[in-house]
Structure formats: C-alpha cells, structure tokens
C-alpha cells in the first residue's frame, strides 16, 4: 500500500525538521509528508485533550498542517518544528467551541485496560476508571494557561524547556504554572477521600526515596 510505504519512509526519515522544511519549500511533497507523519499523532492528542472530540482533533491536525504548508516560505525552524506546530494547534483548539458532555474515557480505554491487565478485577478497573474521571474533571477546572502546561507535560511528554518554547514564555513561568496546577489538583483530589489524598496528614515515612521515575510521563517516542 502506498500510504503505508510512505509512513514507513517517514519513520526512517533521516533529515531533521529544518531540512524537511527547506525541501518542502522547494516542492518536495515527500518531505512535507514526513513532517506530517512525524507530528500528526502528537497534534491529534493535543487537540483531543482540549476539545475532547476526535473529529475536531482530526480537523485541527489538517488545519495545522494546512497553515504550515502556507507558511513554508517564512518558516525558519532553529531545531524542531514542533513548538510552532503545537502553538498553532493549541490556538486552533481553543478557537473551537468544545462540545459539552463528552468524556475522554471511552469504551476503548476501558477495553484497553482490560487487555493490559486481564488479572485485574472488575472492581479495580472500575476504581481506576473513576479515578481517571475525577482527575480529568480536575484538569478541566484549570484555566487554559495552566491546563496546557499539564497537557503538554503529562500527555505529550514535553519537558519544561520545550513547553516554554511552545507557550512562548520563560521556563520559570512554566515551573510556576505547573506548580499551581499540581496544587489545584491536589486540593481537588483531596475532596475525594476514596482516593487517599489527605493533605493535612503528616507523612509517616519521610525517609523514603521519591519515585521520580514512576512519576515521569511515559513518552511514546514517535514524535521525539
């Protein structure tokens, strides 16, 4: 299938974004396709996290790359084209009116949980789904500036410096926004005692090492 061959070719594309942009500017459509396949999933997830609608998210992917194609003549990416693409996608996502009543945890997510952990009991899966629902609802209470930092870090796997490039602000601002988001999230989750958050209780085992590795988001790698 030609589409699959093109995707495989894009996966092993050795050129960096800058070279691909220059090639696409000269009319090389395969270079533009390589850029598309490199970033389409990340933009799709970003649009899905903000709009909560897969069809809107796909339209955002198309619109983002349409704008990128029109802007090829003036694009000068220093390293990666991702900050520019994500910035456009974020603006397009917030310009769309979000649909009400759409929940991100769909039936496919529950099915995936069952497939990943077949030994889990239905009650534990239901508990996991409930926790996910509460956390996503807590994220929705954040303002756009704080929410986008959370989404870019925990969903798209960007570090603080990359987030600063996307949102076009200093790294210190990103740190304070992430701190604010975590504090708000902690407060929100503390209102659900079944989740075990007890902000006012003293920590008993203070000598334990922090599970930093467990808390860092797992990146998918295809867009890195």
């Amino acid at each position, binding site marked *: 299938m030609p589409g699959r061959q093109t995707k495989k070719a894009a996966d092993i594309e050795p050129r960096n974004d800058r070279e691909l942009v220059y090639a696409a500017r000269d009319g090389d459509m395969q270079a533009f396709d390589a850029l598309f396949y490199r970033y389409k999933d990340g933009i799709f997830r970003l649009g899905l996290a903000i709009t909560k609608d897969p069809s809107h998210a796909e339209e955002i992917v*198309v619109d983002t790359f349409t704008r990128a194609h029109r802007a090829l003549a003036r694009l000068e990416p220093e390293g990666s084209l991702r900050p520019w693409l994500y910035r456009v996608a974020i603006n397009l996502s917030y310009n769309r009116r979000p649909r009400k009543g759409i929940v991100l945890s769909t039936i496919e997510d529950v099915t995936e949980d069952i497939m990943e952990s077949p030994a889990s009991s239905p009650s534990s899966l239901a508990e996991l789904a409930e926790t996910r629902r509460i956390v996503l609802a807590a994220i929705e209470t954040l303002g756009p500036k704080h929410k986008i930092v959370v989404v870019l870090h925990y969903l798209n796997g960007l570090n603080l410096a990359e987030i600063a490039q996307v949102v076009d602000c200093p790294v210190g601002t990103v740190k304070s926004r992430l701190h604010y988001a975590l504090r708000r999230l902690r407060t929100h989750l503390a209102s659900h005692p079944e989740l075990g958050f007890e902000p006012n209780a003293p920590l008993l085992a203070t000598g334990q090492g922090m599970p930093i590795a467990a808390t860092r988001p797992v990146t998918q790698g295809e867009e890195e």
Partner: protein
Amino acid sequence: MTCQTAQERISVMLAGAASGRERLDVEAHTERCARCATTLRDYVAASVALDRAYAPLRARTTRLSPARVRLAMRIPEPVPASARFSRITARITEFGLAAAVTAFAFVGTASVTPQHAIVDEAVAPEAVSLTHVTSGGDDQYFLRWLRLGRYAPQADTLDPAVSASVYSDEAAQPTKPERAGLVR
C-alpha cells in the same frame, strides 16, 4: 530553604527538571518539615494520577494521511515514480496499438480495392464487350468470361495457349444478345 521554595522545587522535581543538588535540598527539607513532606507525597500521588489519567490518551493515534491536507488546499496528489513509468508504458502501448490498427486498415483497404475494380470493370457497360458473351449458359464459363473480360485490353499478354482456346471458343459459338441483356 523556605517551605514555599521547597514546594515549587517539588513540582520541578516531578517534571524531571531539577538538578541533583536541588533534589537533595528538597529531600533534606522534607525530612525536617512534616508539612512539606505531606505536600511532596500528595504531589507525587497527583502526578502519578495525572500520568495514569492520560495513559489511554497517549495510545490514541489518527489514521489521517497528508492527502487530507492536500485535499483541503486543493493541491494535486503527487504521482510516484513507479506510476509515472507505468503511465509512460501505457502511452507507448496505446500509440503502438493505434499505429497497428491504422496500418492494418490501410493495408487491408489497399488489398481489397482491386477486387472492387474487377467488379466495377465487369459491371461497367463500357467494359463489357458483347463479343465475349457466349451462349453456353453455364456459370463456369461466365466467370471465366469475367476474368478474360478484365484482361481483354491486354490480351496480348495472356498465355498463348489459354487465349487461343478462348478465342477459338468465341469464334465457334455465336453471341447471345439475351445473355448480354441479363448482364446489363
């Protein structure tokens, strides 16, 4: 280190952006401050909860292709090299077939035309000589007459034996006018 600074560094630590020295400072502070230790525990739990909440979404992909972008921008699809080669081959084949059909039609027409000339000459009144119409009545003789009628102007080029027998037959048998009328 103040509690405010420690809590901000906890967030940075969870984002994986803290240096080793900053991490040690935070750990040292949380060992002394129970409130910040609680904050650290809850931030870790919130971070893990966020990570798990977004886990299904991280697995989501889209099947969109760049053709959608080109369709939105009304850009024609690029033709791959293999398709270009097959297209050229198809054009050559088309041209060859057309040339073959034309040549066949031309050669076929050229080979058929003399037969029409025979019939035309045979049927044309000026080509019919009543002296060649015989009274035998059999079709074989009439066909023979047609052949000879065609070659009649060049009778001197005929085989002498054949022409002699023919002219001797014509001399022996009288001309039947009704036969000529039938031809006309």
